């Protein structure tokens, strides 16, 4: 089984160059965070990795097997119920399987409702279930925790970990939130500049259990992102 190999030389829209040279290799099952401010080109990069954007220079080698994407907007079919949204995907199983998967993520009661009648958090959970229903070899997540209320963020973070563990997929997650990146992934690359390039590429010192502990995440956060702060125990507001 192979992982993901990204070797992009550039991506422009018209005469505006959005992405510069970007390259990284992921082991099968490795989880990567693409970190960078909004508008830097993270979604563009994810589109290239997903294969929906072919207008770039360079090559992307994807693992054998299916690709699943959890988009920033859930992109569910509004005229199908949550369960139907999963069951219509080829290879995702029938309605009963969709309902039981939804029940596992706490959407048992909502599984026969239409997306516009449930909250954004619930829609995104359903979109995540759709992704794991196809048992992907490559899972792409675009800002999976953005614009959720604080309670939903915690639940969604647990759910993401559950989904990644369950599929064993190679994961690329785009995010602007550094703590989120530390809490969920093995390796963090930062995008910066125009056109965007990799400005850092670091393996997280936190193992998969350790990163569930908010204090350990905080420690690495301060060490990595606030090198000027020497106050032990926190208090350094960003």
């Amino acid at each position, binding site marked *: 089984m192979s992982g993901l190999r990204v070797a992009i030389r550039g991506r422009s829209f018209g005469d505006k160059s959005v992405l510069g040279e970007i390259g990284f290799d992921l082991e099968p099952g490795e989880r990567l965070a693409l970190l960078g401010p909004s508008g830097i080109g993270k979604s563009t990069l994810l589109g290239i990795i997903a294969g929906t954007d072919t207008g770039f220079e360079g090559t992307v080698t994807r693992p054998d097997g299916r*690709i*699943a994407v959890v988009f920033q907007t859930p*992109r569910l*079919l*509004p*005229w199908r119920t949550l369960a139907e949204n999963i069951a219509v995907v*080829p290879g995702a199983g029938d309605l009963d399987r969709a309902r039981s998967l939804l029940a596992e993520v706490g959407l048992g009661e909502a599984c026969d409702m*239409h*997306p516009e009648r449930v909250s954004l958090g619930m829609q995104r959970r359903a979109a995540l279930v759709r992704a794991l229903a196809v048992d992907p070899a490559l899972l792409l997540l675009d800002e999976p925790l953005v614009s959720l209320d604080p309670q939903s963020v915690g639940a969604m973070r647990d759910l993401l970990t559950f989904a990644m563990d369950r599929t064993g997929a190679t994961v690329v997650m785009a995010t602007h939130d550094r703590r989120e990146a530390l809490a969920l992934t093995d390796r963090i690359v930062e995008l910066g500049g125009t056109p965007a390039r990799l400005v850092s590429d670091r393996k997280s010192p936190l193992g998969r259990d350790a990163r569930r502990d908010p204090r350990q995440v905080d420690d690495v956060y301060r060490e990595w992102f606030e090198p000027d702060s020497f106050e032990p125990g926190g208090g350094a507001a960003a």
Partner: protein
Amino acid sequence: MGTSTRGIWPALSLLALVAIWVGAAAVADAEKLPGPVDVWRALLAQVETSGYFFHLGITLARVAAAFLIAMAIGSAIGIALGVSDVANRVFSGWLLLFLNLPALVTIILCYVWFGLNEAAAVTAVAINKIPNVAVTLREGARALSKDLAEMAAIYRFDFSTRLRHVILPQLAPFFAVAARNGLALVWKIVLVVELLGRSNGVGYQLYLYFQQWDVATILAYALGFIVIVQAIELAILARWERYANRWRR
């Protein structure tokens, strides 16, 4: 306003119209504007002696055939033009030409070219309607979501899944508009077609009784017509639209 009173208003308003009709008929020459009772009698006479329902049925069959053909061909053309920029640039001029071609010209040409037969009649009606359907569906196809198309590609939707679950539901409101406008248009043109080149159907009957100056019978056919159109609208189109929109918030 409660649901019980809301249903009353259209009925009251229709009653008022009938009252005005009765009043006008009382004042006017009975031959030129017969009252509701006379029209009812004329209708019964048609049912008994002249095959009222036969003529309505024939017209209805022509409407159905022309409507289905026009919806199928018009949708295909419209979707193709909406999806492909090249096709749109090449053919949108043609569409404009057919949109502005007078119905009467199409009808006459169809009869001249294909003969005074059923196929020519239905074709003439369909050709009148196809450009309207195409224009409506072109707008629908242009508005198709790129986000959902991307999602469908990533999750490996096959062609039929994509059509059934992604594309057609987005086009449903445009089909509804095309169907509704189209039905109104087809109804009117089919009568002209019958008048010019058929020996049965409501259009032919209207022509016949126009020559006899029989306004009561003419109104009797018009009423039957209105009732059927409304029934189709309420029983089929409105219900289907409600079903297609059930997911909206």
